[in-house]
Structure formats: C-alpha cells, structure tokens
C-alpha cells in the first residue's frame, strides 16, 4: 500500500507541490472539508479529476483533522493505493429522513460480496436518521463485516452538509466504500469519556429522534435552565450536555445521544439518533481528562495487531460536541490518539455529527460524543 496525506487551504493552496500520482482502480481517496466548499467546489473537483480511476470519498465537517491539528476552512486528504485489495464504491441520494433505512439497504446490496471485509460509510448529517441507516447495514451484513464511518458536519451551525456522490459534491447523499480480500486489515476503536450527572429522567414524549418531554416537562426548558447564560448559543451549546439513554433505570448498557438542533416553537430537541419513549435519559457533562483518556483508549483498540511493516492510515472521527467542550484543548485528544498508535501512522479525519462503529458484539451502532478511530493497512 502506498499512502500520501496532505491539506488544502484557501490561502496556502495544496500542501504538496503536486497531487501524488497514485491513481488506479485500487486507489481510495478520502477528503474531509469545511461545509462552505459547497459554494466553491473547485479544489474538490480538481481532486476528483486528478484521480479518475480511483474511488474518491468525502464529506463536510465540524473541523478537519490532520495529524494532531484541527483546522477550519480546509481540506484534509489521504490517498491510498492498495496493492492487493479491491476497492468498490456505492452511493445514493436520501431525499427524506424516512428513507434512511432504505438507503442503508441499497448501499449494502451494492457492496455485498463474499470477500467483503470492511465498509467505510459517510452520510450527510442533516437529512438522515443515523440509527435507521445503521440498522439497515446491520440487517444486511449481520455483523460479518466491519462497518465504520460518520455523519458529515457543518461546524457548529447544523444547517448544510455535503457528501461526494459519484464524483459530485451533493447535500443529500450517503456514500460508502467496500474493501475486499484477505490482505486488508481494518481495525477500529471508539470511546467517550463523559460523566452522567443528576437524576435519571423518563422519556415521556418523543417521535423518532425528536425529544419533546422528559418526566412530563418540556425537554428544551430543562436544557435552557442548565445552560443559563449560554442559552443564546443554542443549538450548539446544547452539545455540552449530551444524553445517556438506557432501557431501564438499572441498565448497564447506555447509548449517548448528541443534539443536532432545537425547535423553539415545539419546545423540542432533535438528536442524532432515536430517543424512544419509556427509556431513561440522564444528562452528561464533560470531564476533560476523561475525554482525552477516552481518545487514547480508542486508539489502543484500533492499533495494529502486529508490528507494522508498511504505512498505516488512521481515520479519526470525533464528535462535534467534544470539540465544543475541549475548545482550546481539542488537539490534546488528537495528540493522545497518535501517541497511542504505532509511530509513523498518518492521521486524518473530522469532527462529525455522529460516529459509526461496531460494539464488541460485532453489530454496529451510531454513537455520539465519541472518538472513533478506523485504522487501515495492507498486510
């Protein structure tokens, strides 16, 4: 495998003199960029043109990760030319949130093959129900294929995102790439690092991923009370308090849900995944040290099984909520992941509206507020 990573900024242009000449049918190009490239697609188009035979995948972000740094208004790019690994892409438009499950089915059916090892999926971050998308992928692959990825971001604005669909920068797509054969090694790790606090509250009114009431009280009012002066920063300030969901009061397994938007008129909050009625919700708050430790643990989980004898790419997808909380300390978690990974690993990635990775059980889930790492290398 040959691997090159580089960046693009408006002021400095490409960080390399020339785009690496690694175009082939076995080449995968990953590109993560600011949402305002929607208005100026030229650099993205240039990449797509330069790698005509390759599979070019990418999406918008709430911050582009390159090495240990996080940037805005840039492109982070990785070009991988595999020697013995087949690469195939699939994509579809999702015109309505209701079509989320169907989109997952369609993509999975396009990629399915006996030697399919891993799927990396990128979805638009606004017109999608991530939980449904992931459910469809699980139903299709039955836990036999490693599925990782994330939902595209739009800074802290939650307005418009983009995904590359068949060479086009689009707002409403889901795209995925399949990696085939015995030579590709895909590992993954995912960790949070948030603490629950305050009482458990019963979800008394919700519809899919829209939460209306907790314990019979408007959920938005609760958030406003906790945010105090920061209420003006809604919806992004609500990211400071993700929700831990559990099926009953004593359940060990909890799912973390991040807020995607608020509706002042309906007093509701929209989350990145479902909030079922009858579940118990508990507010979470950041603990800086734990967030950074979490990133480090995710990296250890995704690290190579044996000493590497070739290049490794680490794709870091971290939650926008973490960036908001960590703020000036954001890069500490990127340093932590690289420190925990073998020396010489290339890292790119993005701050997202949702992370996708499997549990230990093998079935995949949509996470929020985690650092999710996917490492790729060829044996």
């Amino acid at each position, binding site marked *: 495998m040959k691997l090159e990573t580089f960046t693009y900024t408006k002021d400095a242009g490409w960080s390399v003199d020339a785009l690496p000449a690694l175009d082939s049918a076995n080449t995968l190009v990953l590109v993560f960029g600011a949402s305002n490239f929607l208005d100026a697609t030229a650099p993205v188009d240039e990449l797509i043109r330069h790698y005509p035979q390759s599979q070019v995948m990418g999406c918008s972000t709430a911050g582009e990760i390159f090495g240990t*740094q996080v940037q805005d208004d840039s492109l982070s790019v990785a070009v991988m030319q595999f020697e013995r690994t087949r690469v195939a892409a699939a994509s579809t438009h999702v015109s309505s949130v209701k079509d989320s499950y169907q989109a997952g089915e369609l993509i999975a059916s396009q990629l399915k093959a006996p030697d399919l090892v891993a799927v990396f999926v990128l979805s638009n971050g606004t017109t999608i129900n991530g939980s449904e998308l992931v459910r469809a992928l699980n139903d299709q692959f039955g836990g036999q294929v490693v599925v990782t990825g994330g939902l595209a971001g739009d800074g802290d604005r939650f307005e418009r995102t983009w995904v590359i669909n068949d060479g086009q920068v689009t707002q409403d797509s889901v795209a995925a790439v399949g990696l085939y054969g015995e030579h590709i090694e895909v590992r993954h790790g995912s960790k949070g690092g948030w603490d629950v*606090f*305050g*009482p458990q509250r019963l979800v008394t009114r919700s519809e899919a991923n829209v939460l209306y009431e907790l314990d019979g009280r408007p959920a938005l009012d609760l958030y406003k*009370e*906790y*945010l*105090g*002066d*920061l209420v003006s920063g809604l919806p992004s300030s609500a990211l*400071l*308090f993700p929700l831990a969901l559990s099926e009953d009061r004593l359940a060990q397994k909890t799912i973390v849900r991040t807020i995607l938007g608020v509706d002042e008129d309906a007093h509701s909050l929209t989350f990145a995944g479902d909030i079922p009625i009858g579940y118990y919700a508990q*507010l979470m*708050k950041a603990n800086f040290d734990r967030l950074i430790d979490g990133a480090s643990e995710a990296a250890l989980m995704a690290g190579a099984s044996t000493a590497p004898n070739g290049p490794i790419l680490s794709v870091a997808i971290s939650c926008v909520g973490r960036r908001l909380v960590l*703020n*000036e*300390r954001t*890069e*500490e978690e990127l340093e932590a992941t690289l420190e925990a990974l073998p020396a010489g690993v290339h890292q790119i990635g993005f701050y997202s509206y949702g992370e996708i990775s499997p549990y230990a059980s093998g079935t995949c889930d949509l996470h929020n507020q985690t650092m999710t790492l996917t490492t790729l290398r060829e044996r």
Partner: protein
Amino acid sequence: MHKILWRQLRRLQLDEKSPPKMKEWEAFLSTIEQAYRQADQDRYLLERSLAISSKETQELYDQEQQRIKEALRVSEGKYRSLFENAIDSIFIIDVETRRIMDVNQVAADRLGYTREELLSMGIDSIYPREELERTDDIIHRLLETGYLTFERTHVRKDGSTMLVEVSSIIMEQDGRRVYQSIARDITQRKITELELQRLANYDSLTGVANRALFLDRISHAIELAHRNQSVLAILFLDLDGFKAINDAFGHEQGDALLQLIAKRIQSCLRRSDTVARLGGDEFGILLEGIRDPDETVGIVQKLIDAISEPFNFQNAEAFITASVGISVYPVHGSEPETLIQNADWAMYASKAEGKNNFRFYVAAMKARALERLELGNQLRYALERNEISAFYQPQVECETGALVGVEALARWYHPQLGILLPDRFVGLAEEMGMIVTLSDWMLKTACAEVKRWLDMGLPPLRLAINLSDRDLKQGDLVARVKAALEFSQLPAHLLELELSENTIFQDFKQARQTLTQLKDLGVRLAIDDFGVGYSTLSHLAEFPFDTLKIDRHFAAQIVNSPGHLAIVSGIVTIARKLGMEVFAEGVEHESQLELYRQAGCHQIQGELFSKALPPHEMLALVKAGAVAPRVDFK
C-alpha cells in the same frame, strides 16, 4: 509551559524566546482571551450544573421522603384498620416477657376483659393452668419456623373456655421481638364437626348407628376378638310384615313404629353392644364378648319376645314380630361384610321357616336362598313359556267310590328340575306378587278343561280350585271368577273354590262379604285344611260354605290316635248339621278310608285312589266313569 499556551504559540508560529510583532501579538492576545473565556465558561457551566442538579436531587429526595412517609402512614392506617376491624382476636405478644403488647377490642370482648386489663397481663393468663407448658413449645417452634398454626383453649375472665385456632407470626416491633397471634373462635365449628360426624355415622330416623359405623364397629370388634381369641355375634333382624303396617298406616306412622322398635331393641342389650339400622325395617346388632352360643340364644330370644310384645301405638295396640339371623365370628366369616351377609341369609331362612324366630347361619342357607332367588327369576317367565300346567286329582264318593269331582293342581315343568309341585313355587309366587296371575290362569284353564269334558257328553264333574289369601284380598276376586266362568261357559255350580281357614279369619268382615258375593254367582265354597288353623267352630255357621275339607294331617293321625278320630267325628257331625258336605284329604291307606267312612265323610281324595294326573290321563279316567277300583266299595 502550559500545553494550551504552547499549542497557541505553535499555531501562530511564534517563538517562545522572542516577543511577537504587533499583528501577531493581537492574534496571540485573542487566543489567550479565548482560552480564559472558555475557562470561565467551563467553570460557569460546571457550577451552574452542580447547583441545579443538587437542587433537583434534593427535591427528588424530599419527594421520596414524603412518599415513603405517606406510604408508611397509609400502611400503618391499613394495618390499624385490619387490626381493629378484624373478626378474629389479635394479640401482639413480647417473645421474652410474654406480655400482651397490643390487643384488639374483639379479643377483649371475647375474653370478657377490658383492653387495659389485657395490656397489663401476660398471655399465659388466658390459658388453662394445665396447658401452660405448651406455650414454651409453641414459642420455640415459632422462633424456628417464623410461622405457626395451632389450636388452643382460651379461658375467659369468668372461667369459661373457648376453643380457638391460632395463626402466629414472628415480627419486630420497636426493636423487640414479638409475635402476632390471630385467634379464631372455633367452638361452634367443632360442634358442627361433631354434628356432621354424627350425621355421617348415625341413622337420622332412629338415632342408632348406620351401616358405615356398624361396619367400622365390627372391624374394631374383630380386631379385638382376634387378639383376645374371643367370639362375637352379628344379628340380622328383619321385621315380619312391616310393609303391611306401612301400607295400612302410612309411612309416617311406620317411621314412628321403627323408632319405638329401635328403642326396644336397645333396651334388651348391653351398652357395649351396637345397634344399627341397615335398611327400611332391617336392624343389625353386634354382640361383643360372647362366651358361648347359649348366651347369644338368650339375648336373641329376649329380643324376639320383646318385639312381639304389643306396641301402644296410635291409641291402639300394634303387633309385629321379627325374624333374626345370626352369624358368629370367626366361625361364619372374618370380614364385616361377610358376617352381615351371612346373618342376612340366616334371617332369610328363619323367615322362610315360619317367621318370628331365629336361625344361626349354616352354609346351606345361602345355597338354598340363592336357589330360591334363581327359581323366582325363572318363575317370572314360566307362564309365558307354557311351563305351568294344570293337573287333576280325582275326588270320589266315600260310599260308592264313584268319581264326583277333580281338584285342579298346578305343576311346573321346570326345564332343569323336572316337574315341580306347588309347595316349591306357590310361596315364591306369593312373595313375588305373581299368585293372582297364577290363580287366574288356573281358573281359566281348569274351567275350560272341565267344560270340554262336559261338552264331550261325559257326566258332569265338580272342579275344585285353591285360592290364596292374596286372591281373597284382591278386591276384584268376584269379577275374576265371573270372567273365568263366562270365558269357559262352565256352569257355576260345578266350580268349588277352596279357601284355607287362616285366609278367611284374618279379615273376617271382608272375607264374609266377598264369599257372599261369590256364593251369589252360584259357585260352591269349600273351607280347606280345616282343623289345624285358628278358626273356631262357631265361625263355620257364619260363612256360606258348602264343603268342609279336613286337613290331610288328620289322615295320618286317625289310625293310631283315638283323640284325632274323635275330633274328626265331631267335625263331621257339626258340618253335617250345618248342611255341609265333608271331605277328607290325603287318604293313602284303606284303613284311613274305612275310618273316614265310619265317621261319615262324604267324599275322599288321596293317593289311595289316584295321584294328580295330567289332563289326558284324567280324561281317560273320566271316560271310564270311575276310579280303578283298588278297594271294594260296599
């Protein structure tokens, strides 16, 4: 250097060793301000979150406390309500001191104390003195299991007692170990249980044991007798003719009589003996500790005599007798049912042999009784299978030996037993209520036969037919005789109906009326078996008899007994004076014939001339016009 400061310098590409230029300085300050702001904001959010969630948690805690308090209050109220409104007595008792810690009003009311009094007492105060030790045992077991149900006696303040069923449970109260006892007064229930037991074991009419208890008592007696190598007797007592009393007086009076009889039976026995009612008019008696059979005989005779004493009943005297069968353990069986059954067979035999008597069981009784039962079943179908036939025995003139009549006698051609004589089945037919049918058949058949002979131009013969007391009692006898005469067209004066003296004198009034009506039909009437029954000579004058038949018993006696001969002479003289013909039965020897002739008898019947013959043989005899002369008539 702080990590954040180091990263900020790096991002602005500043050197920590040399101060930045003005433009970079502004950017640097901006990032530092940003960091400070973030720190402030973090602290603000943290403090606010802490304050709000603390408040929320406190509220939840307060709510929960309130809820628990309320729940406790409700629960306490419910308990108090149950405690006070329970229909049972409830006590809370300290395990160590056994003092009554709490008690409800029901308990106080039941025991006749005030609550205050009970609360100053120990629980042992309400137990009988002799049961105090049980409390130790009960508390010991209660502490082991935590729960216990038992029965105890409670003593009221006035010293009276009640039986209670207690459920106790160990509890904690104010840090002390106590037990709660719920006591239910079961005195009434016990009485009911005893009453139920009585109902289950005793005959409701007479108050003596029922069959179930009788069997149980016999079982126990057998066990005891087996151990002591002793003997016991089972008596099966059946009243003779009780059905007639029931029919005559009605069931209610019948029941009243049964009660008197049960009392009389009991009065003849020892307390240790058991009397049981086994059926309508059947009683079972168990005699224990019997030393020899004579002792049993003594008791049984006493019983039979006592029952035959008149009962003052319905302002009149009622008479009844009993037949008793006896079986003895271990000779006649070792199972209660067998012993009762065998006593029953013996009773049956006693009845068959004349009633108002007793019999010990012997094995043959059962066989005989069973045979009789079997025969009875077969008799039911004998008529329709044409197994019954009429035979005819000639009756001859004493002086001339001329054939003057025939007596029709029933014969049963039994498919297995051959020809059976009436003494084998007429009694059975009476018991089975078939005698009337049988008599009717005989009447019609014999009348028709004799008329046939008449129609053949043969000299007229008189036809004698026996009637039973049942025939006489059945109201339509006159109509039945009339029907037979009409059916056969036999002249009425040729038919002679024979009735035994016992039959007639049982119901004097009705008998006379019926006989008069029969006489009006033109038939002849004969009094049968005369001389052995209860009738008095004076009765003879009151009935319209044409013929008097001297009982066959005299035929055997007159030869050797001058007394009997004298009686026969007297009877003949009186009968002749009353205008009756005199007839001697059972004549087998010439000497008998001679004596009867000398006494003045008109006619004779017996084997000396001919036994009873089937119709065709009798016809031959009739055609011959006379009995084969085995004797010389003068």
